[in-house]
């Protein structure tokens, strides 16, 4: 099959079978990637009204909660690039007394720039609710039985992703937290990442996850996941991506200890209280999986999520601290070592993954009109230029 002969908007069964055989991934990931390709020839995203989603949320809650309740104050939320989000207030009596609970409905569009499972996201929120600040998970509509597309409902978390007197690009990218917030948020950022990585991967509540069966499978599954997304979604060939994939395949690191990986751990994905500088919630757990801790560290260190210190100083990881300080403080907080070679491998994978998301999936979904914010996906495609340059630089350093 030559690239010219592949009709990605209407993927042929033999091409899909070839991808699955050549790029095996964790079963839960395979399911969502298959679902994406099966749905691809189907209709574009159908614009949803607040009323329709409130009706869907009502049906979901009614199926899970036997008593009387009422949904009010529904409004759209923005912030993420991949999911549709609606805030509302639930008037109910979970303990026998009437209360009002602010909640969020988080629903997939027809196809997402990050194709993931709501059930896996729900399970991770359940596991980590007592461990790090996360929105309280309530209900999940894993297959879109009650809502137009799969969705989950969790508690509304107060806070902001960036200081109210600053600007950033979309999805919290390029946020400058400023020196004062930086020093107060950095210890929490590190300490909470360590807590995530130290949690037991055999937690029985993680039934939708599969533990990589061998020490190098964590890296192989991760490479396969994102190479598959790239091949399934990208429009224009990028020879550098070929080079990067080939390099990663011949340099797969062995994992010394498996961890739960958040996989989008960065500034812009946590909420904090501006007055107390306390992190109130970690969001966007949808890419979470069991893998190598270096994957999270490397992702956080992407150039896309940081900036240079004011006045021409060092580069600040996630606008929080220098790279060396980040690594040292993580090692101290977790008691786990950081292997520079593995870190570099995962930095290459992180750049590759980010390009697959913004340039591959972003293009395909906007091209097919599959999301509620195609215009945001097209805007995000522009990030690929600096990501490709980061990938080139990282590959150059290992040549």
């Amino acid at each position, binding site marked *: 099959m*030559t*690239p*010219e002969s592949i009709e990605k908007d209407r993927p042929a069964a033999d091409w899909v079978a070839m991808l699955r055989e050549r790029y095996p991934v964790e079963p839960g990931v395979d399911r969502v990637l298959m679902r994406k390709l099966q749905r691809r020839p189907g209709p574009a995203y159908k*614009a949803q009204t607040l009323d329709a989603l409130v009706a869907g949320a009502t049906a979901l809650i009614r199926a899970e909660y036997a008593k009387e309740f009422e949904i009010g104050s529904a409004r759209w939320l923005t912030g993420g690039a991949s999911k549709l989000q609606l805030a509302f207030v639930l008037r109910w009596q979970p303990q026998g007394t009437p209360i009002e609970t602010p909640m969020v409905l988080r629903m997939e569009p027809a196809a997402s720039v990050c194709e993931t499972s709501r059930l896996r996201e729900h399970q991770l929120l359940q596991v980590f609710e007592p461990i790090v600040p996360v929105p309280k998970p309530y209900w999940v509509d894993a297959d879109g039985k009650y809502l137009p597309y799969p969705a989950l409902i969790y508690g509304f978390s107060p806070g902001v992703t960036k200081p109210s007197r600053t600007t950033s*690009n979309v999805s919290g*990218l*390029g946020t400058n937290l400023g020196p004062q917030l930086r020093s107060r948020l950095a210890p929490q950022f590190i300490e909470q990442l360590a807590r995530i990585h130290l949690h037991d991967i055999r937690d029985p509540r993680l039934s939708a996850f599969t533990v990589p069966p061998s020490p190098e499978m964590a890296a192989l599954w991760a490479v396969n996941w994102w190479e598959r997304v790239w091949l399934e979604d990208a*429009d*224009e*060939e*990028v*020879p*550098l*991506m*070929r*080079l990067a*994939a*080939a*390099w990663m395949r011949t340099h797969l690191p062995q994992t010394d200890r498996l961890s739960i990986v958040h996989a989008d751990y960065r500034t812009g994905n946590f909420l904090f209280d501006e007055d107390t500088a306390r992190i109130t919630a970690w969001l966007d757990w949808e890419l979470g999986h069991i893998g190598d801790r270096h994957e999270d560290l490397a992702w956080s260190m992407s*150039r*896309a999520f*940081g*900036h*240079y210190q004011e006045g021409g100083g060092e*580069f600040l990881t996630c606008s929080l601290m220098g790279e060396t300080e980040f690594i040292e403080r993580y090692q101290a907080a977790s008691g786990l070592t950081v292997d520079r070679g593995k870190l570099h491998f995962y930095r290459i994978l992180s750049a590759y993954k980010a390009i697959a998301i913004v*340039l591959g999936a972003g*293009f395909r979904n*906007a*091209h097919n*009109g599959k999301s*509620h*914010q*195609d*215009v945001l*996906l*097209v*805007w995000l*495609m*522009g*990030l*690929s*230029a*600096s990501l*490709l*340059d980061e990938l*080139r630089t990282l*590959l*150059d350093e290992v*040549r």
Partner: protein
Amino acid sequence: MQIRAPIVLQAVIKSFAEVVLPAVAADNRMAQEQAQLILGLLTLLGQRMPHEFAYDLDELKRLAALGRTLQQLAPDAALTSQVQHGEEVVSRAGASPAELLDAVGALRAVVGEHVSRLENQDSGPGAAARRAVLDCVREQQVRERTWLLMQGWEIDPSSLPTLESLIAVPVTGTRGPP
């Protein structure tokens, strides 16, 4: 380079029609009218933009033919000169933008396949080929980053040269004074 007019316009029109337009106050008649006009103009642009080059080339050919006819009927030095220039431009406009883009895409695909094959070989020009790819990417990415500079992704925007200095073609229109 993937952020091109067709996909940008498609996404902008969808966002405008489905999200922004319904939110414009119904009693603001000027905003309502201008919102509809914006939608109409963007739709017109989206439909016609792929044909602009062919449209202009077609017009130039027919104008040159008309000029040559008129010049034969009543010779005029300025007309002769401009007809010759027009015909010369037509003769140089061999490849359309779509053909150019197709050629870029096809070459990217072949190079990509070639790179994969080389990387899977135990011997051969591996290191030199990798070096060539990385060098080419470095040059190309400077151009793409500069092209997209206004989006605000660069952590050090001042490090990038101007677009004009990189692609060495005039960015202003070629239309002469009236």
